[in-house]
C-alpha cells in the first residue's frame, strides 16, 4: 500500500485512537490487553488469581458487549492497535483467519489439544488460530404442564422427530394463545443456527469434508427442511428473545434456547414447570440429537506486542479450574476443558448437565474464509423457505448454487 493509503487509514481511525489508548503499564510489568464479553465481576476474581501466579504480567481487561464488540474489534485492528488477547465468537473467527489477523498457534499448544474440546471452531486446514475457551450450545426447553394438558407424559418428553411433531401439534391444538413450538423468524442472522441442527442430526451438512464443495442441497438437508417446515403451522414465529419470553410465560410448549434461560426461569417464572432435553433426533435408531455449537475461543492478534504473555494468559484461562468459575458466575457457556464435564457442579445441577451432554453431538459451522458470505446465503434462502416464497427444494438448491459459485470464485 502506498503512503497515501497509509495516511488515509491513519486518518480514518484517528478518532478511535484518540480515546482508546491501550498502552503499556508503567510498572515494568508486561501489560496484556484482554478484551472479553463476561461481566468484570465474573472475570476479575479469575484474573486476580492469574496476577498472583504471574506477578510479572499485568492484565488490562475490558468488557465488550455483544451488540458492539465486533465493531470495536474491527476498528482496533484497522487502527493497528488490537488487543493482545481477545475472546472471539466462532462465527467471527473465519473472517479473522481469512485475513491473517490471528497468529497461528498450532505449534505453541500441542499439549492443549487433548485437554480441550471445540477445536473445529478454531482450526482452519488443520492449523489452530485460537484456543477454545468456552463452548455454547442450545437444547430443547419443554413446558411439562403443557405436555400434560395435551395428554402427553411429562416424564417422557419427545426424543424423535415424529414424537416432537406430534407433541407440537397437540399443544398447539390446546388453543388459548398457546403454540406448540417457538420458531425463529424475523431475524435472518440466526436462522441457520436453528435449522441446521435438524439437518446435521439427519446426516446433512453445509460443506463437504474438504470445505471445497457445497452439500447444502443434499437429500438429508432437504428432508430436514421439509420436516422443520411442518412445525411452522403450529409454531409461534418470533425473534429469539421473544420466544424465550413466550416460554417463560407458558405460551409455547417447546423452545430451543441456551443455558442462560436456566438462570432466569426460577426467578422470572417460579410457577413454570419445565425440563430440558436433548434436541430431537430423526428416529430412535437413526441420526443424532444434533445442535449448534458455538465456541468462544481466545485468539492472539498479529499486531500484539505481548504475544508470549498473551499466550500465558490464554493457557491459564482455559484450564478447567479457571473456566468453571466463569460458567458458574455467568451461566452462558461451558468450559472447553474436557475435564469440566466431571465437575461436581453438574451433579447438583442436572439441567445444566443436559447442555454438557448436548455438546457431544453439537456441530460447529465450518471455519472457512468465505463463511460470512456462506452464512448470509444460507440464512437468506432459509428465510425464503420459512416465508413460503420457495419450497424447501428450491431454497436449498438455490443456496447450493450460490454457495457453489462463491466457492468457485477467486478469493
Amino acid at each position: 500500500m502506498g503512503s497515501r493509503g497509509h495516511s488515509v487509514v491513519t486518518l480514518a481511525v484517528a478518532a478511535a485512537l484518540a480515546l482508546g489508548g491501550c498502552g503499556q503499564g508503567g510498572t515494568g510489568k508486561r501489560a496484556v490487553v484482554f478484551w472479553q464479553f463476561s461481566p468484570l465481576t465474573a472475570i476479575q476474581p479469575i484474573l486476580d488469581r492469574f496476577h498472583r501466579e504471574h506477578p510479572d504480567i499485568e492484565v488490562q481487561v475490558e468488557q465488550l458487549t455483544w451488540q458492539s464488540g465486533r465493531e470495536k474489534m474491527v476498528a482496533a485492528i484497522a487502527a493497528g492497535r488490537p488487543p493482545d488477547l481477545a475472546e472471539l465468537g466462532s462465527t467471527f473467527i473465519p473472517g479473522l483467519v481469512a485475513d491473517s489477523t490471528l497468529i497461528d498457534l498450532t505449534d505453541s499448544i500441542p499439549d492443549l489439544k487433548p485437554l480441550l474440546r471445540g477445536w473445529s471452531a478454531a482450526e482452519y486446514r488443520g492449523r489452530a488460530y485460537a484456543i477454545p475457551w468456552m463452548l455454547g450450545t442450545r437444547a430443547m426447553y419443554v413446558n411439562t404442564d403443557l405436555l400434560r394438558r395435551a395428554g402427553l407424559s411429562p416424564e417422557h418428553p419427545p426424543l424423535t422427530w415424529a414424537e416432537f411433531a406430534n407433541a407440537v401439534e397437540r399443544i398447539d391444538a390446546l388453543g388459548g394463545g398457546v403454540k406448540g413450538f417457538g420458531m425463529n423468524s424475523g431475524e435472518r442472522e440466526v436462522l441457520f443456527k436453528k435449522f441446521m441442527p435438524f439437518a446435521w442430526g439427519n446426516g446433512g451438512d453445509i460443506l463437504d469434508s474438504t470445505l471445497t464443495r457445497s452439500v447444502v442441497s443434499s437429500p438429508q438437508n432437504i428432508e430436514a427442511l421439509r420436516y422443520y417446515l411442518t412445525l411452522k403451522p403450529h409454531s409461534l414465529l418470533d425473534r429469539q428473545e421473544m420466544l424465550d419470553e413466550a416460554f417463560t410465560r407458558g405460551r409455547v410448549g417447546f423452545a430451543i434456547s441456551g443455558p442462560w434461560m436456566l438462570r432466569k426461569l426460577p426467578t422470572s417464572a417460579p410457577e413454570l414447570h419445565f425440563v430440558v432435553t436433548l434436541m430431537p433426533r430423526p428416529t430412535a435408531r437413526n441420526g443424532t440429537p444434533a445442535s449448534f455449537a458455538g465456541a468462544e475461543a481466545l485468539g492472539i492478534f498479529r499486531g500484539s506486542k505481548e504475544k508470549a504473555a498473551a499466550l500465558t494468559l490464554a493457557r491459564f484461562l482455559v484450564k478447567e479450574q479457571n473456566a468453571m468459575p466463569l460458567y458458574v458466575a455467568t451461566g452462558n457457556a461451558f468450559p472447553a476443558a474436557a475435564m469440566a464435564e466431571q465437575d461436581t457442579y453438574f451433579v447438583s445441577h442436572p439441567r445444566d448437565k443436559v447442555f454438557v451432554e448436548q455438546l457431544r453431538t453439537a456441530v460447529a459451522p465450518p471455519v472457512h474464509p468465505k463463511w460470512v458470505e456462506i452464512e448470509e446465503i444460507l440464512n437468506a434462502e432459509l428465510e425464503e423457505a420459512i416465508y413460503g416464497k420457495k419450497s424447501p427444494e428450491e431454497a436449498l438448491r438455490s443456496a447450493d448454487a450460490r454457495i457453489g459459485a462463491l466457492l468457485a470464485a477467486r478469493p
Partner: protein
Amino acid sequence: MKVQSIAGLLPWSFFFAVFGLLPLLAALALSFYDMNPLRPDLTHWIGAGNYTRAVQSPAFWHALRTTAIFVVGTLPMTLTLAYLVAALLGRLRRGEALFRAAIFFPATLSMVVIALVFKSLYAEQGLLNGWLEAAGLPPVHWLQDPRLALPSIMLMDVWSSVGYYAILILAARKTLPIEQLEAARLEGMRAREIERRIVLPHVRPVILFVILLNTIRSFQIFIEVFVLTRGGPLESTLTLVYHLYERAFYHFEMGYACALAYILLFIVGLILFAQRRLGARPA
C-alpha cells in the same frame, strides 16, 4: 472582543475538526480505496470503483428504495400530526404545560429505549396483540410480516418525533402577535381562514426547518432497524444506513461502505437543496 470571540470558538472548532471534519474527509478518501479494516496493509486505490459497484448493485437500489419509502411515508404524517398537535396545544386554556411535557416526552428518550419498548409492544404475543385478542380480533404480525415491518417502524418513528416537532411549531405560533389575530377576528375572518392566511405563513420558516430536520433524520434511519428487525424479514426493512453498516462491519468492505455513505450524503444534499429552493419561494 474579536480575539475573545475566536478564543471562545476554539474548543468547539477543535472537537469539530477532530471528530467531525477529519473523519468526514477520511471517509471521502476511503471511498476511493478497496479497504478491509482487518487488512489495512492491503488497502489500494480503485478510483470510482466503489461508486460504480454501488449503482450496479441491486441491494443498494433496494436499500435506497426502502429508505425513500420511509422518508416519503413518515414526513407528511409527522408534519401533519405535529402541526395539528401544536394547534391544539395553542388553544388549550388549562393544563398546557402538562400536555406540552407529555407530548415532548418521547423526544427525551433515547431511540434505543423507544425501539426496545416497541419491540415488546410489537411482539407476536406482545401488548398490542394482547389487546387485539381481548377484542376478539386476530393477531397482527407487526414485525414478522414483510409487508408490515416497515410501516410498523414508520409508525414508531412518527410517534417518537411528533412531539419534538410539535413543540417547535408551537413555539413559532406563540411568536404571532395577539393583536394581529384579534384584528383578523374583528375583520370577520373565520378560524380556518386565520389559520391558513395568518398562522401558516407565520410558522412557515419553522415548518421548512422541521421538513429539513426530519428529512435528514429519516434518511439516516438505523437504530430502529438495528434493534427491531436487522433489515428483515425478507429484507423489507433494509435501509441504506443499515446496508452500509453490514458492508462495513460484517463484510469488512470499509471503502465500499464509505462510498455508500457519500452517495447518501449527496442524495440528502440534493433533496435539501431542492427543499430550500422551493421554500425560498414567496408564500
